[in-house]
């Protein structure tokens, strides 16, 4: 009897989980479906779900109108570069805060996080002027630095949380065996924190990939990533929903595929240390 209740509960939990999952995924599914419709089908009321004449015309138009590969490469460079650069800075920072804390460590962590509370538009003009002076406007390097700085507090916080779970004694033992600081971080700490570092890397890559304020405001033609690619298909005067959906699908496809293949790593990292 008890087993039957457990099975029922399991089935219920599974059903709830699937329902929530589908609910969250539905806008993406709808975007993908719309990308295969004509503009007239895209706005038809009642909406058509699956039974329509599927067309690749929108993808052909988008391909013809925009240099997708250039936008994609910019996104990969900027998201990848800012994440790697962020990790290089954040790993030692999180190490010092986790294993050699001072009385100000907590304050510093909070202060770092508080920078995320500032509305981005509040510092648009100072950063824009700085970019003009430094010749960084519409460059991938400039955008990589900005996105790294924006995401750095989150990277440090996440790594700090993971590092706190690692017993300090292991690092002490490495030190007693004569390991230098760099070797201690690279050969002892990093391998133990791989799940945490991997999930931090993935999450920050996704955040940088989706960032749409700085990537739109600090670029023009050369360094514009996929967020600008999507924005170029949005219009308040004209119905281009099918083409916009095709552009959106092309923009999210790489990150969707990456997320699908790395979901185990991502979940393991995000729940790392959650249950003791």
């Amino acid at each position, binding site marked *: 009897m008890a087993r039957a209740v457990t099975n029922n509960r399991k089935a219920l939990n599974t059903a709830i989980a699937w329902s929530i999952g589908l609910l969250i995924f539905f806008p993406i599914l709808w975007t993908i479906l719309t990308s295969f419709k004509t*503009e*007239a089908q895209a*706005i*038809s*009321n009642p909406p058509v779900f699956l039974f329509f004449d599927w067309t690749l015309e929108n993808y052909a138009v988008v391909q013809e*109108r925009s240099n997708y590969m250039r936008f994609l490469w910019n996104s990969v460079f900027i998201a990848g570069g800012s994440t790697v650069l962020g990790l290089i800075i954040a790993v030692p920072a999180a190490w010092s805060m986790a294993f050699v804390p001072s009385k100000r460590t907590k304050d510093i962590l909070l202060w770092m996080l508080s920078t995320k509370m500032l509305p981005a538009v509040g510092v*648009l*003009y100072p950063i*824009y*002027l700085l*970019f*003009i002076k430094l010749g960084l*406007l*519409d460059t991938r390097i400039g955008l990589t630095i900005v996105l790294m700085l924006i995401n750095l507090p989150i990277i440090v916080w996440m790594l700090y949380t993971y590092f706190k779970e690692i017993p300090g004694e292991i690092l002490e033992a490495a030190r007693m065996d004569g390991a230098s600081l760099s070797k201690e971080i690279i050969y002892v700490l990093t391998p133990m924190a791989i799940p945490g570092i991997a999930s931090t890397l993935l999450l920050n890559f996704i955040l940088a990939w989706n960032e749409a304020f700085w990537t*739109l*405001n600090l670029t*023009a*033609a*050369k360094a*514009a990533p996929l967020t*600008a690619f999507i*924005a*170029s*298909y*949005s*219009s*308040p*005067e*004209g*119905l*281009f929903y099918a083409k916009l959906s095709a552009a959106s699908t092309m923009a999210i496809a790489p990150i969707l595929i990456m997320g699908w293949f790395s979901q185990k790593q991502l979940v393991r990292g995000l729940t790392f240390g959650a249950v003791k």
Partner: protein
Amino acid sequence: MIYTVSRLMGACAVAALSTAAAAETLTIATVNNGDMIRMQGYTDDFTEKTGHTVEWVTLEENVLRQRVTTDISTKGGAFDIMTIGMYETPIWGANGWLVPLDGLSAEYNVDDILPAMRGGLSHDGTLYAAPFYGESSMVMYRTDLMEAAGMEMPKAPTWDFIREAAAAMTDRDNEINGICLRGKAGWGEGGAFITVTANSFGARWFDEDWNAQFDQPEWANALKFFVGMMEESGPPGYATNGFNENLSLFQQGKCGMWIDATVAASFVTNPDDSTVADKVGFALAPDTGLGKRSNWLWAWALAIPAGTQKADAAKEFIEWATSTGYIELVAANEGWANVPPGARQSLYDNPEYQKVPFAQMTLDSINAANPNEPTVKPVPYVGVQFVAIPEFAGIATEVSQEFSAVYAGQQSVEEALEKAQALTNDAMEAAGYR
């Protein structure tokens, strides 16, 4: 002979070098709409003629506005040409942010630009942006539903006629709304529509001393009329409908009338997208007999920011894109119905273009709008559906949010007008106008 040949070869080499040196790559910021996208497809023609190449940055209208404002106000130089509207041009021209478009070639024939467009894109008599296409607003209506209602649309209807016709065409059982209008918050969406409606009722945003006028009876009359008519004959949830939502409704045969941008005429008469393409008639925007029609005036225009290092090449591009030659190029390849409208008188003098069903009505609508005298009483500002001051976008967005709350049934007309009056006066005082 040898001397002559060597001189000729030398001259050719110099010419080739100078052409190569003068060839520039222009970065152009533009909006995503049919005419602009079409222009991108013809860029090769410009490159062939001048040697200059073009890189396009296409953005959604509001994103573009924010993006180019940041760049031009900091003299960032990220763009060599910007696509801007009638609202920005006189303000930015006055600030010295734009390169004056003087010294245009005789072949360009600047006098051919429609006077309303030229006036709206100038400051102190100097042209700062060349219109790529212009638009006004007009009534688009279903000829079959009008006939079924036993009514006939006059060329220049009144608001009372429109309300009566809307009620007669409404068929709730078959999801047909007599009239579809913008109610969406935003200065360029519902804000623009209610402003031109109010103009035709004799209302104005400010008196000559920049005092807000929402406490005057004209505004209450206009807003009450609009809300009453939409409750009788408008679609449900019209408080969130903008251009695209109404276009979608009209194309699906769910609106008897739609008053909106003249560029919509080509969409609703296109049989590929519209189910009612062969049943659409046009009329001037309505009035109340006070001498002002409720139509706006707008142009998407090309301007050169003062921060660019390539002003000469940019001017060459603007001459190419806004010339009669470009119009002829599009007409030859895609037909007269697809040329950018509303910018040049010669287009409307062309017998081929006169065959386009909405051509004359578009011209009449553009000519019926006067940015210098937008309403019945005198005003201290320029602009029909906007007030050409930097503070307007922020103020009008807030005011339109208050009005949208009325359309959604969240507050009364009186409450909204009271709030609009207070917030407008506060903002104008803070900005030093009062």
